[in-house]
């Protein structure tokens, strides 16, 4: 028997898909900004705004990305236990133990047993924590570079970042390097969603649509069912 569990609440799902959308937009426009296409045009430069629009999308998406990220952090304190910050930051021995279990089972494939976590497993949670740090690096360097172009007070909060790296050149490079980790993350993330759906059959892929996962009845009887860093 499988039981329906409401794992991902609406704000989490909203965050996930908005994040996916803006991340694709940011990477695509970011690549374009780094190395624009060789456009040919008979029109006067004043009649065209290609690079301008690409950059506009990049900056607009950056704002969405940042505030979406902030909203998710807030939800990490008020959302359900699968959304809680304790899913991401290792503050207990249990967390590390579960991480090791996941490595043995899903990476090294030493065990054949199914793992019982319902929300994020500990390794996934910790990986998301690392991506949050990466988000922060991208926001800091990105808005830092943007600050000089803006009169608004908000980007000015980041103006100290390029100064920290001695100027825009290195800041821009860090921003560019860090972008690659997003690409690698997305590839691995999508693969693992399919992987878990395939071997566990609990509706891993569709869970980010409706929010539900379908968990075996026995799992509710066992003790270590779910969340790392239990209260």
């Amino acid at each position, binding site marked *: 028997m499988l039981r329906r569990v409401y794992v991902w609440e609406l704000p989490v799902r909203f965050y996930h898909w908005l994040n996916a959308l803006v991340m694709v937009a940011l990477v695509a426009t970011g690549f374009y900004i780094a190395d624009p296409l060789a456009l040919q045009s008979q029109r006067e*430069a004043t009649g065209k705004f290609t690079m301008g629009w690409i950059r506009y999308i990049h900056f607009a998406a950056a704002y969405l990305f940042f505030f979406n990220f902030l909203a998710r952090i807030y939800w990490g304190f008020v959302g359900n236990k699968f959304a809680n910050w304790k899913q991401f930051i290792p503050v207990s021995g249990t967390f590390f133990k579960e991480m090791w279990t996941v490595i043995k089972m899903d990476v090294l494939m030493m065990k054949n047993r199914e793992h019982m976590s319902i929300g994020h497993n500990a390794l996934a949670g910790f990986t998301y924590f690392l991506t949050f740090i990466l988000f922060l690096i991208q926001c800091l360097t990105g808005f830092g570079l943007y600050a*000089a172009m803006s009169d608004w007070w908000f980007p000015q909060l980041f103006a100290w970042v390029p100064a920290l790296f001695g100027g*825009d050149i290195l800041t821009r490079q860090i921003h560019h390097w860090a972008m690659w980790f997003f690409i*690698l993350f997305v590839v691995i993330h999508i*693969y693992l969603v399919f992987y878990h759906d395939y071997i566990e059959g609990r509706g891993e892929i569709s869970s980010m649509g409706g929010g539900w996962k379908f968990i075996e009845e026995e799992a509710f009887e066992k003790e270590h069912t779910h969340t790392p860093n239990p209260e």
Partner: protein
Amino acid sequence: MIHETLPSPPTYYEEVERKGYSRREFMAFVTTMAAFMGLENSAIGQVVHALETKSRVPVIWLHFQECTCCSESFIRSSHPIVADILLDKISLDYTETLMAASGVQAEEAMKHTMEKYRGEYILCVEGSVPTGADGVYCMIGGKTSLQILEEAAAGAKAVIAWGSCASNGCVQAARPNPTNATPIHKLLKGIPLIKVPGCPPIGEVMAGVIVHLVTFGKIPELDRLGRPKAFYSKRVHDSCYRRAYYDAGLFVESFDDENAKKGYCLYKVGCKGPSTYNACGVMRWNGGTSFPIQAGHGCIGCSEENFWDNGRFYERASAFAGFGIEANADTLGKAALAATGVGIAAHAIATNVRKHKLIAGKVQEGKISEKEFES
């Protein structure tokens, strides 16, 4: 005449007159400087008054590891009064390049200024200070650069770091930095310091900084990196006359193509204008004649810290130190992406092998249910 009996040193204006400049020329100079410094029209009177009443500020101008391009730039600033009055005739008590004295007399002159005008003189430093091998790479009169710098800075009112060498080390500090060339802000603490980076800085910018110090008696407003805001708050990109081509997305693809002839944006051939804070696009060089981008060459970012090592001059791609000369972030990224792909394929295969039983069980269960619906 009472004035002649007084021992006080001449004011700037008196020196201007003595050199044979007319009042009109003097006013033109002040107006030009005020405009460069970003002052309002009403402040012109203030500058005039300051130069008429204030006597010369003594300047000690030290040269360490550098090429003297800063001095060259300064004496070529567009208005002759800059070099003639601020530098040549009035203020310079000691500078290796331009002073008439040499040897013992020169050292005496510096010592004299340091003692007589203690706490009043401005110390200008051109060049970085080598601290490697106890400083033997650059010694003058038997002293290391560091010793000379520290002695001179002790009694200075303010220090100006001319050029990229003094501000951030420039080429001598590029990897592997054999002499351990050090910018002076890392060696001097607790003294007002103005960085005027550039290789060299624009002559008018240098003059503007000095005129500001003389006029207002204090250092100009500085940004986070210690550069005067009046000249370094905007990127070269923001004031570039080719900016419209950038926004339109029209770029020079190679230096000999049609787009280069049309004067398109040099972004794709490595222009560092978008990351470089300087006044080149506004003030230009050689008396406002031109600047690198106008001459068809991208900005190399010479006023930015570590511009020698931060990527190559002729491409946008970020060089990645330590991974070979051809490696850049994107090459590495693609390699990492390929490795990830291979890893995923291997993992997928391993999953089907190692977890065969588990998967087979699921498939079996699914098929049984399917059958039940059929019947």
